[in-house]
């Protein structure tokens, strides 16, 4: 690329922690697990960046326990809400002043918004939605692997000349490290100019999701439906099974396109990546687009009329048959089994 920079000035691996509503999002620890390997390979520090309204030592120590060597904290009352202009200004200033070599954020609504904004303004390289990261032993460059073209290929991308090497990483694509409470490090509180916190965009309200409904990415058991469910009414069969298992219902892309289920329930490349204990795929053919969103589930059961369906290649147990016939029987049988176990 045309921009000549002195790459030796850029050091350390950074992760953008997600801390809001007084809670550290689990993805912050997943990022540290990715970053730990990279920092060890580069022989550098692993630093976590936190932007929020206020945060206590206990939460910060959790970042150390999960692998951070150092934490940069920016606190301001305005940072209670995520406003792109503001968060991007703060992150850009940190990047330009402190020059990280590698900078990772989660591929969440936050990471996928602030990272491209900052990457443009700092002329950095940015790779979206990575599922694999490694340091090339020869060049020391970051190799970033991601699905593309509807998940039909895996592309490995590098940023040879620009810095930082930025990436957003799919949530649930790596397990956090086991917490080591004995680890500690430096907390650096960074002051930002007050004008950074004056924004044109403002938040009127925040409407929290119904907490009684488990988000598909947090459920231990997900019963998912695809085109093969056939119609909106048949989703009741999936709901019944999910209820008896204590899980929730997810979908592949077609039911969202059909308006049978909302986008927030979509599992797959343009939806959520999930890794539940049990994933039951009903009437899902298994396009790569879908598979990249659920293949790290611990156990996968698939029901499909087509014995050649690709979903069976990633399943542990497959049933070839009609879900409208099988699901009611399965639900009844599990209910019976659970009642017996409760006695």
């Amino acid at each position, binding site marked *: 690329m045309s921009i000549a920079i002195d790459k030796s000035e850029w050091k350390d691996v950074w992760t953008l922690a997600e801390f809001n509503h007084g809670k550290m999002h689990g993805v912050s620890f997943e990022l540290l697990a990715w970053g730990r390997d990279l920092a060890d390979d580069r022989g550098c520090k692993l630093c976590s960046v936190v932007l929020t309204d206020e945060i206590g030592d206990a939460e910060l120590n959790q970042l150390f326990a999960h692998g951070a060597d150092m934490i940069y904290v920016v606190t301001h009352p305005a940072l209670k809400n995520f406003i792109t202009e503001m968060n991007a200004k703060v992150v850009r200033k940190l990047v330009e002043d402190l020059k990280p070599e590698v900078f990772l954020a989660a591929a969440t609504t936050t990471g996928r918004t602030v990272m491209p*904004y900052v990457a443009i303004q700092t002329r950095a390289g940015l790779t979206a939605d990575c599922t694999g990261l490694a340091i090339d032993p020869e060049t020391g460059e970051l190799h970033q692997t991601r699905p593309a073209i509807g998940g*039909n290929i895996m592309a490995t991308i590098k940023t040879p000349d620009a810095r930082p090497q930025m990436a957003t990483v799919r949530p649930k694509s790596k397990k956090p490290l086991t917490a080591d409470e004995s680890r500690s490090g430096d907390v650096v509180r960074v002051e930002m100019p007050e004008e950074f916190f004056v924004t044109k965009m403002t938040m009127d309200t925040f*409407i929290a999701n119904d907490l009684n409904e488990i988000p598909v990415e947090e459920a231990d058991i997900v019963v998912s439906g695809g085109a093969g469910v056939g119609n909106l009414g048949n989703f009741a069969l999936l709901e019944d099974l999910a209820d008896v*298992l204590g899980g929730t219902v997810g979908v592949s892309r077609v039911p969202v396109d059909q308006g049978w289920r909302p986008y927030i329930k979509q599992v797959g490349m343009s939806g959520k990546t999930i890794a539940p204990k*049990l994933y039951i795929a009903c009437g899902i053919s298994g396009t790569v687009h879908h598979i990249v969103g659920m293949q790290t589930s611990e156990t996968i059961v698939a029901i499909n009329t087509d014995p050649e369906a690709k979903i069976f290649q990633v399943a542990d147990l497959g049933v070839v048959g009609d879900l409208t016939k*099988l699901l009611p029987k*399965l639900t009844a*049988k599990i209910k019976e089994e659970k009642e017996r176990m409760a006695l």
Partner: protein
Amino acid sequence: MRIIVPIKQVPETTNVKMDPETGTMLRSGLASIINPLDLNSLEAALQLKEQMQQRQQNQQNKDDDHEVIAISMGPKNAHYALKEAIAMGCDRAFLLSDRKFSGADTWATAYVLTQAIKKIGDFDLIVCGERASDGDTGQVGPGIAAFLGLPLATYVSRAQMIAEDVVQIERLVEDGTEILRTPTPAVLTVLKEAGYPRFPTLKQKLAAEEVEIPTWGPDELEADAEKIGLKGSPTRVVKIDKPQVGRKAELVAGRDKADQDNAVQRVVDFLKERNLL
């Protein structure tokens, strides 16, 4: 009011065939379509325009000019996508096409689109689809906002003008819905929920055929040669692999009535073996 909608022409990838040897896409016979989410952004933009027209009629104002302009960077044949945008109701369209633009990553793509937006001049909103179905990065919309230094809302499920120069936005995030507002100009990237795309009538399609779509290259855009195409792109592709999928399912027959009970029993036993009940 002026709204600019950057769109992308993409291969139809839902049933894409891959070369098993090389792991590359078999492009022959692959239809080119407007990126699906760009149909939603076009619809959202057209609705915002109609809303403003309605508003001013009610206030019996002298009609300001309202227009939606589609732009696209791509090969010459991407003008088909722009014709479709015109048929849907866009007033004008510009194609950004030149061999020097090829090989662009999201940085260089956002740069060219931004140059075109600057050339068009004043605007109220830029409305983008949240991501394209082929690259799947979702980085170009935010990139345009960053080049222009404008307020940005991503993952927008609903947008409406609540004053001449204020847009209110619903933004879907992991744990809920944000209601935001911003003065214009601003950049939005929208989800499917933002507007169910209208179908052009045959008459509109025929009329669109007659509309001339100017093509702009690096000279018209006064683009810095160091910032376009592969040369302007910070990232490089190292390699392309086939995705690895692996687990071999134990397959159980469950088609016939007799098999169904066995199959259900097998699933229940399996879940018990794995302590999932």
